[in-house]
């Protein structure tokens, strides 16, 4: 009998996740060896490992909330799989919603129809293939283009890369301001962002002027966590719905 938390579904999800975990370990080991070949010190690499691990904790916990949200409807295995690999809630939720709407069912109760579940699983899977396909097929070409650009003019190549990053950051900064017309509660994300920037500046000062070198590695995750914590009293004080 099918149900959304069937052991077979857990087994399948676990299998796929183990594969992806194996791939992550493989690339991590290769990257470590490569970095050593390039002359980077073990202590630097170890600090990168620690910093990246700390950095990932808060976003990963936020992803668990995504699993909880989806699991009420889809059970645990499918959201666990989709959010452990390939996806992000910003994609998986619309995909599940789109399929559920097409099926004429609501996202509030646990699914019982195996074919409806299968439809949703297929939509979520097929709908997420484009980035992976492009990278798998064309990444060498994309990189070649970039290399030729850099070999022509190294300084411009560096500015070009920075511009790409700035493009990404500016789009998200804009998004953070998208609710300010709703009044003071709409400003909460802006204040949270400003607080995160402020913490980053303070940490930068401590690293550079006070020579607290170890802090550099954690400046970003600490700024993020600090700003997240700051949002709790701030929201209580302003009284927003966020």
């Amino acid at each position, binding site marked *: 009998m099918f149900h959304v938390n069937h052991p077979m579904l857990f087994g399948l999800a676990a299998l796929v996740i183990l594969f992806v*975990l194996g791939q992550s370990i493989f690339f991590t080991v290769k990257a470590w060896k490569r970095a050593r070949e390039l002359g*980077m010190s073990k202590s630097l690499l170890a600090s990168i490992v620690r910093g990246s691990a700390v950095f990932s904790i808060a976003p990963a916990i936020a992803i668990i909330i995504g699993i909880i949200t989806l699991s009420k409807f889809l059970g645990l295995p499918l959201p666990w799989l989709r959010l452990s690999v*390939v996806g*992000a809630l910003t994609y998986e939720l619309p995909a599940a*919603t789109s399929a559920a709407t097409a099926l004429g069912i609501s996202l509030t109760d646990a699914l019982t129809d195996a074919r409806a579940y299968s439809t949703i699983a297929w939509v979520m899977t097929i709908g997420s293939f484009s980035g992976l396909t492009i*990278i798998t097929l064309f*990444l060498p070409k994309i990189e070649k283009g970039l290399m030729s650009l850099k070999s022509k003019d190294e300084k411009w190549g560096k500015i070009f890369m920075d511009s790409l*990053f700035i*493009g990404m950051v500016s789009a998200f900064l804009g998004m953070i301001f998208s609710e300010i017309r709703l009044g003071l509660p709409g400003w909460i994300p802006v204040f949270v962002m400003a607080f995160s920037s402020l913490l980053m500046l303070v940490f930068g000062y401590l690293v550079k002027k006070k020579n607290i070198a170890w802090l550099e590695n954690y400046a970003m995750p600490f700024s993020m966590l600090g700003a997240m914590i700051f949002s709790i009293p701030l929201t209580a004080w302003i009284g927003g719905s966020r």
Partner: protein
Amino acid sequence: MSQYEKKIHRWGRISGILAFIMFTAYPLLLSLYFNAWPYLDALGKGLLGVVPIFYTVGVIEAFTYGPMLGAGGSYLSFVTGNITNLKAPCAINAMKVAKVEPGTPEGEAISTLSIGISSIVTTIILFLGMLLLSTLAPILESPLLAPAFANILPALFGGLAVVFVSRNWKIAVGPMVFMLILFIVQPGLANAVSLLVPVGAVLAIVLSRILYKRGKL
């Protein structure tokens, strides 16, 4: 291309194809096992609702994040997902801390290392989260903590902005002001932020090209 680069592309492609097969295995095997094939009309309609937008986003992400994250980092992050909200910022931060430039062999190694570690840590945390779900759910879903998780992106990009603005304020001002105005005038665009990443990137590239040609950078 160096020996390492050749190898990383080979590994990346093999693992990409394997990932493709593994991801398809879940719906395929469950369909076989439960003899539950999708309702075709709902499958079509459901895909119509996501493919036009998310395939576009996927293509854009591949072309913007690909150069940023380097070969190993890209192959890995497009399989492990959560790129914008986790892998890309994590790799950017790691490259900054290690004082290496993206797009160089050193940058590529550090980016791949940090994305690999981030994927491993995330997988472990999600596994633990799932095991302890009944204990964790009331805590994580409590109204007290809700604002912290609702504001994770502003908390993340606030710190990141400092890094980039301080390094390149001349390039940063234009795209940022443009995006601010755009989102304030059209708040609905918040749902399509991924589509605006390349718009910001093109704008930043054009502006910096003009400044560069005039010798202002």
